[in-house]
């Protein structure tokens, strides 16, 4: 290496970008007004970063990313048009606004369309502590990734590697609308991952591990990521077949968040107003056991999904989606809220830090004991989820448990059921919460599912 551009060397860059985006947004709001739009909203974003991949001890790829985007939506009374571009020149922005206005001539008036209600727009902006730029050189980034891969390859069962990576990004997003609102947020994301292979006879297995954080100093040490990755990969060797049967299924924490994501999708406004969810008309009904609650904490400091306003500028707030097993709140943006004659919940664009709570969280070992005999799922494959009916059928890999102890690894099987029943059959939630994502939960034990194997 004879050059080492340091990422984030100039800390003023992000603030200059933030100011520039705000100017663009104001400019385009004015432009839309001058073209006759009755309402308009604009989202602009920018990010830059670095990602390195090493494999078998050497650098494989070194990527410098820099992305920007700009999207405008205009309303002429209730006819809507949208346009977007990654070119921030005045000409390109003008073209985009004109294109959006042109579309609105051809779309039909929709009585539910329009900006979010003005009284819901955010006006309080607590510090979320999301910006922690990593002053790392490319050489150091490569070295950290190498540490992680080396640690994994030291394991005696590891025979090959798919590499280790490190990525570090900073960015900002600005949103403004013709309610005189312009909000912005800056943040960083850093992650490290590792993927290796183990071989035994004809059997070859691979697995990975990663960590991700807003603040780089919160990341696991690279050696630990490598060591966990190696241990997980080696533990998959020695697969045995499993018979087709009904049995308890324990979703390990990293994949249990997927299960909660299906629930979130089923209580999302866009599926509800189309009558396209198995949880339609379930508000204030029991859908989980009463020991379990699901809370959203949008203002967590350093949170993966933290935000003071949603993608329509609506103030986010702490709330229970599920409280003591009862569906307390849907997830609504202003369009779906109007369709359902309700109020936006500040969830246009999705959720902001979801956590599964239970009155009694149990350690992973005790969950296995509690299950006694059943299937720990550590990997899911495929897309066999039907939110309209709740029908669920996916490929799975993991471990078979008897007498509360892991017996052998399993793969090539499916697990199937119906989400409405699976949610009611949750018998325990683990204390082993996976904190790496926007949806956080411990492992989830489900009383019985159909397993298809031999």
């Amino acid at each position: 290496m004879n050059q080492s551009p340091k990422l984030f060397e100039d800390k003023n860059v992000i603030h200059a970008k933030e100011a520039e985006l705000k100017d663009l947004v104001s400019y385009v709001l004015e432009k839309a007004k001058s073209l006759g739009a009755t309402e308009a909203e604009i989202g602009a974003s920018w990010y830059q970063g670095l990602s390195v991949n090493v494999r078998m001890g050497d650098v494989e790829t070194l990527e410098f990313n820099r992305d920007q985007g700009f999207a405008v939506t205009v309303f002429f009374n209730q006819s809507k048009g949208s346009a977007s571009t990654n070119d921030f020149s005045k000409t390109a922005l003008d073209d985009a606004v004109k294109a959006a206005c042109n579309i609105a001539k051809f779309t039909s008036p929709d009585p539910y369309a329009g900006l979010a209600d003005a009284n819901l727009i955010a006006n309080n902006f607590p510090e979320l502590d999301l910006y922690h730029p990593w002053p790392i050189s490319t050489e150091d980034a490569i070295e950290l990734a190498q540490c992680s891969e080396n640690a994994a390859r030291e394991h005696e069962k590891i025979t090959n590697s798919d590499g280790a990576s490190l990525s570090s990004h900073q960015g900002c997003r600005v949103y403004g609308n013709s309610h005189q609102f312009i909000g912005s947020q800056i943040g960083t994301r850093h992650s490290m991952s590792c993927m290796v292979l183990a071989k035994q006879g004809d059997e070859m297995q691979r697995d990975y591990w990663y960590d991700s954080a807003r603040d780089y100093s919160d990341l696991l040490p690279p050696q630990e990521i490598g060591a966990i990755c190696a241990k997980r990969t080696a533990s998959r060797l020695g697969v045995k077949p499993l018979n087709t049967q009904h049995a308890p299924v324990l979703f390990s924490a990293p994949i249990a968040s997927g299960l909660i994501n299906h629930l979130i999708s089923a209580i999302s406004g866009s599926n509800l107003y189309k009558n396209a969810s198995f949880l339609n008309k379930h508000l204030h009904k029991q859908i989980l056991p009463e020991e379990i609650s699901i809370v959203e904490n949008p203002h967590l400091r350093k949170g993966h999904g933290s935000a003071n306003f949603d993608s329509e500028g609506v103030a986010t707030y702490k709330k229970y989606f599920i409280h003591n097993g009862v569906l307390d709140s849907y997830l609504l943006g202003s369009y779906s809220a109007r369709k359902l004659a309700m109020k936006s919940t500040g969830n246009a664009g999705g959720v902001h830090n979801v956590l599964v709570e239970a009155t009694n969280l149990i350690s992973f070992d005790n969950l296995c004991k509690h299950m006694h005999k059943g299937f720990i799922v550590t990997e899911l494959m495929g897309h066999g989820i039907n939110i309209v009916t709740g029908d669920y059928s996916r490929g799975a890999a993991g471990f078979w448990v008897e007498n509360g102890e892991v017996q052998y690894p399993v793969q090539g099987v499916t697990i199937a059921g119906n989400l409405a029943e699976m949610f009611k059959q949750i018998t325990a939630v683990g204390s082993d919460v996976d904190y790496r994502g926007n949806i956080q939960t411990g492992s989830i034990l489900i009383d019985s599912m159909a397993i298809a194997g031999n």
Partner: protein
Amino acid sequence: MSTPLSIAKKQFFEPANLTDQDLVRILDSMLSRSIDAADLYFQHSYHESWVLEDGIVKDASYSVDSGVGIRAMSGEKTGFAYSDELIMPALTQAASAAQTIARVGGKNVCKAWKKANPPMRYMIKNPFDFIDEKSKVALLQKVDQVARNESTMITHVTATLASVYDIVLIAGTDGTFVADVRPLLRFNVSVIAEKNGKRERASAGGGGRVGFDFFIDEDRASDYAKEAVRQALINLDAQPAPAGPMPVVLGSGWPGILLHEAVGHGLEGDFNRKGTSAFSNRLGQMVASPLCTVVDDGTLPDRRGSLTVDDEGCPTQKTVLIENGRLTGYLLDKLNAKLMGMPSTGNGRRESYAHLPMPRMTNTFMLAGQSNPEEIIASVKKGIYAVNFGGGQVDITSGKFVFSASEAYLIRDGKIDCPVKGATLIGSGPDVMQKISMVGNDLKLDPGVGVCGKDGQSVPVGVGQPTLKIDEITVGGTQV
């Protein structure tokens, strides 16, 4: 007459007064830092989409995205940077970042650009040219009516018309200098049907590297609406699916995602060079039943997965992956081809200028066999006949793959019986391919809706196959 190159030069060179010589200067400057090879990928992408819901066209959007990806390669190392500004200072800066990958050492030379005129696989005009906005709205509204007229049980219809018009120009130190203009259209209809409090959703669609008239000709758009309604009504009556290993007959066309997952990904060059695929080091070996011949063909005219040249400027080709059961080829991009000592197969693809190319599929399908489709179904005493699928996924190392049926039937005593609910099928690629015991004479390609994801990059692809029988594969139903 306009050619892809003249369209691309007008798009990328004229606004910033760039010349061929500027590109040579950038590439030359990169080589002087001991890089083996470097390339520039210019892209201008225009997207348009129109959405109908609740009987009205509620929203539409135009989107423009353009930039240049700059790649520098030194042995197995790749440096990559990109710029969304098509001006010299920005290009030079990105080139300098990409070449950070180089070690100090010798000097290579940029080869003279070769004149490339690969045969064009599709038209080069914007698919929406000569069609006004009113016609787009009218088509969507017509399709909505067709769906609602099909059945009173339809409660919701969403129809989407989307087009992409991509202009790319690729220049490399290996003498590559070529442009491509790529139209891509897609129409999709999704419906929800309700009967006695039960609801089901189904969708259908199609498209290709074609013009808007594709959907009007032969009333294709109306057929998508009818097809979506048909599937939704069938699924309303579906019984729970069985669980466990059993014979499965796959229909022709879209069920070819079997090949995409069970074979295609595992034969991508990067995995095989690194020895991470279940198919690694198996060239020349029997990896499927002798009835199977599987190809990847990027040259088919107007298909969604076709390309005149890949994203590294190599003309696409027909690559035989498996011939009568024997493994005969891998899918290669330039980097992996060079490292494996083989020629590129024209399968270097990338999602956009902001992504690195890697080996990807184009249109992957199995050639027709001898059997009658009826005779294949009649040969099964108890099993499943699956004709439509959602998505699939594969673990290329263990070879385990899944794909999820969205329309399937029980077969009893050689006859198609009742419909069963969607279920995921799971198996191991090399194992399942050996168990293909009958191959139909009815090869069909999919309607043009496939998207393939790898390492976070999405590209349009095609699949296809004749009706075929797998003697045993695990069906992930609920009836144990």
